[in-house]
């Protein structure tokens, strides 16, 4: 197999896996946040507005790991340094 083909294939695979695995963790975390917020709201309905506000902030913070993996995926897909290196090496 040519090195460029290999790098291309592995890059696509890695990009998919990156979002998939990164998404699992953040999804579990967000589910945890939502479940606990609902429990708190059931116990104290008066504080529901405050809890909802805090829940959104916490969710956005938890979500950031998924965003990082998305960012790395984008880098692999569109600005892959190894790909450029292999193409330059093949041209020589």
């Amino acid at each position, binding site marked *: 197999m040519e090195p460029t083909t290999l790098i291309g294939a592995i890059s696509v695979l890695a990009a998919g896996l990156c979002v998939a695995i990164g998404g699992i963790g953040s999804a579990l975390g967000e589910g945890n946040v939502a479940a606990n917020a609902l429990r708190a709201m059931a116990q104290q309905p008066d504080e529901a507005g405050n809890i909802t506000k805090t829940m*959104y*902030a916490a*969710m*956005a*913070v938890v*979500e*950031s790991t998924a*965003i*990082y993996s*998305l*960012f790395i995926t*984008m880098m692999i897909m*569109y600005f892959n340094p190894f790909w450029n290196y292999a193409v330059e090496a093949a041209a020589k």
Partner: protein
Amino acid sequence: MIKTEPSQILQKAPDILLLGVVFIALIVRYFVGFSGLMDIVWSLVALMAFLIRVCLWIKNPVGRWILIFLIFSAWGSSVHFKPSVIDGIDLRNIDVIPILTIGPVTIGGTVFYSWLVMGVLTLISWLATRNLKTTLRVSALQTAMESVVRSIRTQIIEVSGDNPARYLPIMGTFFLFIGMSNLMTVIPWFRAPTASLSTTVAFALCVFCAMPIFGIQNAGIKGYLKKYIEPTPIMLPMNILSDFSSMLSLAFRLYGNMLSGAILGSVLMMLAPFIVPLPIQILGLFTGMIQAYVFTLLAIIYVSSVSPRQPFEDHLNFY
């Protein structure tokens, strides 16, 4: 038996005609792509006329505004990502999209759209504060502005427990700028300046500079530097590193959220261009406001991490 008068049919005719014109414009644009400026202007004028007719039809004001919003966001999303482009995803960094060139200087997309948002914010605040009143009858815009300022102020008091007057200018600017630039994505051709890494890193650098300034103002140089050896002096490198990593995460979170919304919208545009991307666009608006809130909240937390130890009492009684 209801008899339809001819005059009624004549009244309805322009609406049907406009509807047809708008649909033809949309279909032509979908298959051909924009060929020139006149095409864009023509379809925009048709859409505006159609919108005005729809407003006259619907009597319920809430339904009217929801409809206008839906049509506008559909239009914005469909114009924004032209399906005629082969790859569909416009991943070009908006920093490098040239908007206008004046001599040797080329103004990129980020600068242009940032100035647009700044202009809109300045215009709105100028209109709101043009004639302030303290009587019973105040203008609607003044009331809206007061509620916005009051909610930001309340948030700052709740989060930092400190005098909000010192944090209000920088934190309120963050919230308003990010929120407005995320909300303005419903406008066709507008691209949020927060979807560029340069803007978000600049914001994070502002927070990074504001941290020691407010900390030293609050507790003096000695009290501020004590933050870094807080549990034990062994934690010094960790504390320094955490400052940098929190700034990095602040920048990347905002950028990634805005970019992922745009990518999701464009991928859906390739699959089903007309109605299907609408829920995602609306979700994107919601996410944008949440991100503006989160960015401001975290900035307040970072900036007021070294605060004076007596609680602030709100004498203005804003609650």
